[in-house]
């Protein structure tokens, strides 16, 4: 298959800048349309202001098989709130009027197929998205999407897990662009204990020569983030942030926590 070369965008520019400054990336994950349908734009702006480097927006799906209870519940609520893919892309356009923070979309296939496959990637790019994460799609099935993402200059962020072999890490790294999503455990998001993952992250770093390696799943505190950032190029935090948003809700408190996270790494 003919693949157009992936062209750098806000995401790669940001990650290059961070590497040059010897800084680690803080990626924050939000479920779009949670807690209220229209919470997303102000929340993203608040997180960007507080020091997030990259925002990952989750497209809510009825059956989010990579997600734990916290993100599942937030997805259910967002669907009840009336979120749709069209609405999310509208929110992205609104965010883009105010900030240049790199934005990555994470989604399950079915809503994307319903929206229209190529139309989704074209519209995502037009609205201001920089990269795509499709956790359901294994390496063997990525070709069909790569032609769209490359045509529309979106980063393809593929995932590796502790079960991924060295050879496969190299293959996934080769196909990926933007960054490599290093899943901390064999399980779903938001698990309580990240355990001893240093040797695993080191192994991924050893084999993934092309992309920055960012670790996600189960990172809950500034201490967790600090531990992992010693070996990785950045951390991705989702469930813990959504829990904070659900529990405290005030912008100042969330902003303070984000600053702590950024300072810790």
């Amino acid at each position, binding site marked *: 298959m003919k693949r157009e070369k992936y062209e750098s965008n806000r995401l790669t520019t940001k990650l290059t800048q961070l590497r040059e400054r010897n800084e680690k990336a803080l990626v924050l994950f939000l479920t779009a349309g949670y807690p209220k349908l229209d919470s997303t734009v102000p929340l993203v702006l608040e997180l960007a202001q507080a020091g997030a480097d990259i925002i990952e927006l989750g497209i809510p799906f009825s059956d989010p098989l990579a997600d734990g209870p916290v993100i599942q519940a937030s997805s259910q609520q967002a669907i009840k709130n009336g979120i*749709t893919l069209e609405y999310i892309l509208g929110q992205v356009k609104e965010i883009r009027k105010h900030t240049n923070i790199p934005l990555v979309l994470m989604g399950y296939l079915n809503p994307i*197929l319903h929206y229209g496959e190529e139309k989704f990637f074209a519209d995502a790019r037009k609205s201001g998205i920089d990269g795509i994460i499709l956790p359901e799609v294994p390496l063997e099935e990525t070709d069909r999407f790569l032609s769209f993402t490359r045509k529309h200059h979106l980063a393809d962020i593929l995932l590796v897990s502790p079960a991924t072999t060295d050879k496969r890490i190299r293959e996934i790294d080769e196909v990926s662009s933007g960054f490599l999503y290093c899943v901390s455990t064999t399980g779903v998001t938001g698990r309580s204990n990240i355990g001893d993952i240093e040797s695993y992250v080191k192994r991924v770093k050893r084999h993934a020569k092309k992309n920055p390696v960012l670790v996600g799943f189960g990172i809950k505190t500034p201490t967790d983030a600090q531990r992992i950032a010693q070996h990785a190029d950045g951390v991705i935090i989702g469930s813990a942030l959504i829990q904070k948003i659900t529990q405290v809700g005030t912008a100042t408190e969330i902003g303070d926590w984000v600053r702590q996270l950024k300072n810790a790494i």
Partner: protein
Amino acid sequence: MIGVEAAGCGLNTQKHAATLSKGTPGVLHGSFSYLLQDKNGQVELAHSISAGLDYPGVGPEHSALKDLGRVKYVSITDTQALEAASMVAQLEGIIPALESAHAFAHLDKLMPTTSKKDIVVVNLSGRGDKDMMTYASQNLEGKSVK
């Protein structure tokens, strides 16, 4: 060949699992097949008294057989399946699984359309030991075959 789906409380209600009759193509749990879903691609809840059929998707093989026209898919409600299970128990001494009971229930509709020379084979795919709690709660005792 005929395939029998779970109509649950009826195909005209929201409570059924008739993915091949009522679903549209989509991806769930890694398979591209017929799915019960809304216009945004959110998967809907299925319902069937039979746990094995209570699923909003269906095997891709069935989806392919439907599209090929190789299998005709029909559906049977919870009540019809329970009655058929009782019938098979009384006539054959076999307690069928609730899933298979759907296939037996379709005989009521199918047999009048066949001739004496036709041979009809029913796939009794599972046993009913696992469904005893459901059968017991349905108070089928004392109801005998017409």
